[in-house]
């Protein structure tokens, strides 16, 4: 500890011992000593607290005018501290406190302090936070602050902190009107809590168009500065879609009901009510895999004999009681299964990155970005934004261009090429889901596309045949167990070493795993949970070299009659 600090703590010890006996007499000295110390070390938090105590005490014994003077002196002292160290938490916090206690605050003086501080460092977030407090407490109109950001951005488009501030102001001034298409028809839910992404922070359309113009000026002027691009992305974005049951599936053979939700739920705690032919059913909802507790798909088994008679028609309703929503499903005579769903297309599932605004507006934005791309063909922000717009307008129609742009992205921003590959895989999966739905088939096929991971598996609840051959997959994770209708799994020529997700798939009959990396019998354990499995192709896997593999497999998987090693 330095000499200074020793002196400080000794003084304090002395001082407060004194204070306990003679209140107020040594306050002046205490203020002087702490002032000296804080000038050189504004992060000595205890000293600021000590000062606050003294000041609060003085408030009770001095006249209002004197108190005003004392606090103004405090502000002057703080200004000198901030000049030395503009990023001290202690100093800014104390200034907040003083400003709030000043009998006659001078808010314009505080704003001008902020202006000066920001002119030296426009990214000083302490100063920005302080400014926000001043604006709030003094009631500066939002429109005036918006004008402030206009000036800052106008003089320097690259002012990221200004764009950020604007993003918080704009929705206050021009909120989305209640009549505009808003996903939620119910009264506002108490949770989850708001973030700028959620509905209440969106901006009305008229103002949005003006903002687009402002932002386009910015990124046409300096296409390499990311400030405007991030702001633009936010402008184009939209709220989360409403929460609902996206699919109810029922199967007579297993007497099982599977429910898919628009977001993951916890099977144990989600409030679901199953009504069968007008009668509430007591069932146990579970997730599809014990290691996958927070999942968009839940399943339950009906008591045996409930729906097994194919000559009976049944009506099911699943109520998601806490969200005041439900979905019906009718199981007809002669049919072994039934479902009711909104397709990914209906839900605009993959397009919902962007706003629900008029297509013409998005077309026009796409046009502007394409114009910029002609001038700046290697600009990654432009490419990313174009991809976003194309996926919003017509994911299948623009598929070829999207893939080409991803290729370019990997070339112009090679540092992130692995990330772009992953993003591209995701889009390929999304497009395959859409194509599958347009064709109204239950077959999902992506081969030879360098897929390394899987996503949107909740969209594959109804799929009966899946072909993922010739990719780079290493595992079929627990999420894979959402494919409750799967009958045939083709995943030849990958790098599969983990089959965790092939778990209790009641209809699974064939698993084709040629040329993968299954190395131990234990890796195949999950397959034993699939009662209908009869055909298994393990050729070209290390596990086939193990001793006695054939007899071990027969013991593990007795239902398999067609085993290829």
């Amino acid at each position: 500890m330095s000499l200074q600090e020793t002196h400080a703590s000794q003084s304090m010890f002395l001082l407060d011992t004194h204070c306990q006996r003679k209140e107020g007499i040594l306050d002046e000295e205490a203020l002087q000593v702490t002032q000296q110390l804080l000038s050189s070390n504004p992060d000595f938090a205890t000293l600021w607290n000590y000062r606050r105590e003294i000041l609060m005490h003085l408030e009770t014994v001095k006249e209002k005018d004197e108190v005003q003077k004392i606090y103004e002196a405090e502000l002057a002292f703080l200004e000198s501290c901030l000049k030395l160290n503009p990023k001290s938490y202690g100093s800014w916090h104390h200034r907040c406190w003083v400003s709030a206690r000043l009998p006659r605050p001078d808010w314009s003086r505080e704003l001008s302090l902020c202006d000066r501080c920001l002119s030296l460092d426009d990214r000083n977030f302490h100063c920005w936070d302080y400014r926000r407090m001043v604006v709030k407490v003094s009631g500066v109109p939002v429109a005036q602050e918006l004008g402030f950001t206009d000036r800052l951005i106008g003089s320097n488009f690259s002012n990221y902190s200004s764009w950020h501030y604007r993003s918080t102001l704009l929705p206050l001034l021009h909120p989305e009107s209640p009549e505009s298409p808003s996903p939620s028809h119910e009264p506002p839910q108490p949770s989850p809590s708001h973030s700028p992404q959620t509905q209440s922070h969106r901006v009305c359309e008229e103002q949005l168009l003006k903002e687009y113009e402002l932002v386009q000026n910015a990124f046409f002027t300096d296409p390499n500065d990311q400030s405007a691009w991030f702001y633009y992305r936010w402008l184009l974005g939209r709220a989360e879609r409403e929460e609902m049951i996206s699919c109810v599936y029922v199967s007579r053979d297993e007497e099982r009901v599977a429910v898919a939700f628009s977001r993951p739920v916890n099977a144990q705690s989600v409030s679901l009510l199953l009504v069968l032919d007008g009668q509430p059913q007591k069932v146990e909802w579970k997730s599809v895999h014990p290691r996958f507790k927070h999942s968009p798909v839940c399943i339950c088994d009906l008591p045996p004999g409930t729906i097994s008679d194919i000559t009976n028609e049944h009506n099911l309703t699943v109520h998601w009681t806490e969200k005041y929503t439900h979905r019906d499903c009718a199981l007809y005579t002669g049919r072994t299964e039934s479902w009711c769903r909104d397709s990914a297309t209906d839900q605009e599932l993959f397009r919902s990155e962007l706003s629900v605004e008029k297509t013409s507006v998005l077309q026009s934005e796409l046009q502007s970005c394409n114009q910029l791309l002609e001038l700046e063909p290697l600009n990654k922000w432009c490419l990313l934004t174009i991809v976003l717009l194309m996926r919003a307008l017509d994911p299948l129609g623009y598929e070829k261009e999207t893939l080409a742009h991803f290729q370019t992205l990997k070339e112009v921003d090679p540092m992130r090429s692995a990330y772009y590959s992953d993003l591209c895989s995701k889009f390929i999966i999304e497009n395959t889901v859409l194509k599958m739905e347009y064709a109204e088939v239950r077959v999902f096929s992506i081969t030879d596309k360098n897929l390394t991971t899987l996503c949107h598996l909740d969209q594959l609840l109804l799929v009966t045949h899946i072909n993922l051959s010739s990719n780079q997959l290493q595992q079929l994770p627990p999420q894979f167990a959402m494919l409750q209708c799967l009958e045939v799994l083709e995943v030849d020529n990958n790098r599969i070493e983990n089959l965790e997700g092939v778990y209790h798939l009641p209809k699974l009959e064939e698993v084709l795993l040629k040329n993968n990396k299954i190395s131990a019998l234990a890796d195949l354990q999950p397959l034993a949970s699939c009662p209908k499995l009869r055909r298994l192709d393990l050729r070209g896997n290390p596990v086939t070299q193990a001793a006695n593999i054939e007899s071990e497999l027969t013991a593990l998987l007795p239902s398999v009659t067609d085993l290829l090693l």
Partner: protein
Amino acid sequence: MAEEENQFEEFDQIDFLRDRHVRFFQRTLQVLPERYASLETTRLTIIFFALSGLDVLDALDVIEKNIMIEWIYSLQVLPTEDQSNLSRCGFRGSSHIGIPYSTKGPGVLHPYDSGHVAMTYTGLCSLLILGDDLSRVNKQACLAGLKALQLEDGSFYAVPEGSENDIRFIYCAASICYMLDDWSGIDIQKAIEYIRGSLSYDNGFGQGAGRESHGGWTYCAIASLCLMGRLEEALSQRELDRIRRWCIMRQQTGFHGRPNKPVDTCYSFWVGATLELLDVFQYTNFEKNRSFILSTQDRLVGGFAKWPDSHPDALHAYLGLCGLSLIGEPSLRKVHPALNITQRAFQHLQHLQQTWRGSAGSCSRQH
């Protein structure tokens, strides 16, 4: 201002000067130059950087662990005989207030003595790193002190008499509860609401609602949610993907903390660990990251600085090592990305927690 992507030369074969870094941390634990005097009140955090740094370097044998353990326990603010100061308990940053040295209770009541949430956090980490079994930590007192710091909006003060409040201290609180295996010190639901409210328009996290996104606060947000076991409940897949995108874009060569700011060694950990927790760290460019970190290595005195040709300091020295550890630098121990201690120290913690649960019978862990 255009991105400065060619700011730094490509270094081909920079050696990692392990011994210099060991010496750097050793000196940190002994004597610091006068300009460090202002850090006296937060001395325990500097100790943590040095200890954990030595741990990452697998060089803890160069220090006398028992002496350190005693010193850390002397910083514990213990309950007084009448337990009237429970809401002020925890660990203090150093002896600067002048409380007489003592490693056992009962505590001495002093109007200006209290725990500080970041000191309690780094104090517990340091004890774990040194192999202590935390048996002398008054857990109930620490948790009572912690509880007293949480505000209505879910954030935390650093000290009971008040200070600024934001997401940094939520992270400290979550770490404390995680280590003590007891979540009674924090209202998790409120903390989650504060964290969610800090998500900014560009999908980074600010220090609080309406504040600018920043790599450090994003780490605090994500790491806290991971420690609480609530990452996927608190944030939707879509939000997580957007957050991944904001974080991935922070890499220039090394990482910066905010758009249009220069790269800084410490963000190789803050952002790197966040990406690791979000399962996408493998999509970053390891080579460029490594080159940048090593360009800030001080070849003379050891340690790392925030920028090349700058003075090294304990924080950047430690986080630079953690950044290298994340990319798998050989000879460095692996770091637990959420708790920010080595996996070795983490395993010691797990072992301790098993014995606690064994004797207690019931489990209050959040997972």
